[in-house]
């Protein structure tokens, strides 16, 4: 897909995010907006997905297709929107987000059989381990496709992340591309203040990872370029870590760069102000 088209999808996804969070008056818009460009680039450009008659189809095993895992499950709005816009389930279902009897739970789950989701996430620190397991299964199955996993930067404070970080290079899990969303914010404030992660790139390098930095994590062209570069480095015995520098709340001026919009929903006026900044490109749900 052309960069311009990907940007159009991203604009619609951002509209979906603020509308979903507004409708149930809860959820996490900040990180969702910041990771929109990455998820659109993955699903609409980079990932090899299972299709039938030009439509994506879902099965749990995901053999011979690329897999994506969201470890920081609280940014579910962006994932739900991208999955629906890609055709995994009807976009009208986005309106049920976080409401009773919905398949779109506050945090992603397989429990409601929502197409596109292969593991529950929300309790932080677990997604990379799961992605590594799925990548190992691909190797055992002689399946050459790639596994992607996204984590938050605050999430790097969880101990399990470093168990997984040690494991993947040791077992040469070189069909795995992990991302850290470096937005520098977590619930209680700036990450530097809450718990300084120091130099994550150096840490992962020391653990044996191949580290790539995407400085403009909200620039579609930069993301696509970074993803192609990462893909080219697969299969050489090392897992790949992409440090993705994003802006929390990116795309809505008053939500940008602050931890205040980590887990807060906009009111009616704020919704209108946000939507005025985001072009409706694919039609609202």
């Amino acid at each position, binding site marked *: 897909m052309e960069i311009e088209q990907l940007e159009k999808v991203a604009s619609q996804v951002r509209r979906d995010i603020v509308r979903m969070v507004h409708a149930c008056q809860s959820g996490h818009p900040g990180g969702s907006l910041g990771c929109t460009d990455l998820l659109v680039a993955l699903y609409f450009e980079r990932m090899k997905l299972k299709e039938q008659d030009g439509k994506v189809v879902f099965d*749990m*095993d*995901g*053999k011979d297709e690329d*897999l994506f895992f969201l470890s920081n499950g609280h940014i579910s709005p962006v994932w739900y929107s991208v999955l629906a816009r890609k055709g995994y389930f009807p976009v009208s279902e986005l309106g049920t987000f976080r409401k009773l009897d919905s398949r779109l739970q506050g945090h992603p*789950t*397989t*429990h409601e059989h929502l197409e596109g989701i*292969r*593991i*529950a*996430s*929300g*309790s932080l*620190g*677990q*997604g*990379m*381990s*799961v*992605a*590594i*397991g*799925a*990548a*190992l*299964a*691909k190797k*055992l*199955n002689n*399946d050459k496709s790639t596994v992607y996993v996204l984590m938050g930067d605050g999430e790097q404070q969880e*101990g*399990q992340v470093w*168990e*997984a970080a*040690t*494991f993947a290079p*040791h*077992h040469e899990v070189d069909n795995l591309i992990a991302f850290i969303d470096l937005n520098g914010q977590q619930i209680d404030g700036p990450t530097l203040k809450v718990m300084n992660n120091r130099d994550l790139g150096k840490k992962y390098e020391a653990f044996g990872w191949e580290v790539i930095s995407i400085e403009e994590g909200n620039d579609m062209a930069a993301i696509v370029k970074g993803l192609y570069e990462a893909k080219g480095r697969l299969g050489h015995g090392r897992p790949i870590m992409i440090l993705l520098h994003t802006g929390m709340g990116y795309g809505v001026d008053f939500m940008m760069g602050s931890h205040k919009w980590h887990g807060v929903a906009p009111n009616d006026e704020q919704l209108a102000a946000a939507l005025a900044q985001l072009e409706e490109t694919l039609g609202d749900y």
Partner: protein
Amino acid sequence: MKKYTFTEKKDTRSGFGAGMQVLGQQNPNVVALCADLVGSLKLEAFIKENPERFVQCGISEANMIGVSAGLTIGGKIPFATTFANFATGRVYDQIRQSVAYSNKNVKICASHAGLTLGEDGATHQILEDIGMMKMLPGMTVINPCDYNQTKAATIAIAEYDGPVYLRFGRPVIPIFTDADQKFEIGKAWMVNEGTDVSIIATGHMVWEAIQAGEILEAEGINAEIINIHTIKPLDEEAILKSVEKTGCVVTAEEHNRIGGLGDSVAQVLVKNKLVPQEYVAVNDSFGESGTPAQLLQKYGLDAKHIVEAAKRAIARK
């Protein structure tokens, strides 16, 4: 009383290792994972024959549970193995979210459960694991009684699609069940039919219950003994059928009296038929260092204590 004899004693963990060897030969989807305790889990034969299907995780249990969950997504059947303490309490949230809530076909296989781990002491003697695991929706909880039954259970859970907690241990105990038994998940095993008291036991306590039954018989008391190897789902029908006949129950388990088999049985009785129940279990305490026999005696879990509990239950009828 039906006579149970034995010619050999072995540890239940060796039954697990033997079951894994069979699975390694029969089921190409079975993958074994371990957190630096290969010798303790008796995985040597499986690893020797299937090196590509063994994943050494190092001392990182949380990651091992996550990797196991991920392996199921590619259709693998992961057996995640370590000591019971590290397989449950240490990684409860990982099991809860990535395995149970996600309904992943992970087999959590836990050795060295209970007091009979022995000399290592309380840090390693988990007595709360059955409770934690049975509280997870969708989790099957199995605690077999001897080498042969553990081997059969190991083979059987690979055929079952869903998360399982398989609990076994370290002490060498008599082998008194059939070598070629078929293991049915959720189906109680009638060890001995009787009329005066139902002794419902799990794991290592089944052999203690058999010994207790013989002592009781000598005193003219006819005990029915049931092996509940599957604590969840519980064979409620077998339990109710037994108490209809005997009118009182003793539950016996190597676990805290809170949250284990005894409480599961009590729930069935409260809902269906109120009869006296006595618990043979650890009385809400931690364990300590000692030999397995010393610990069973000190913490009130040996045959003698089952006999006393049976008499108390009968007296309350």
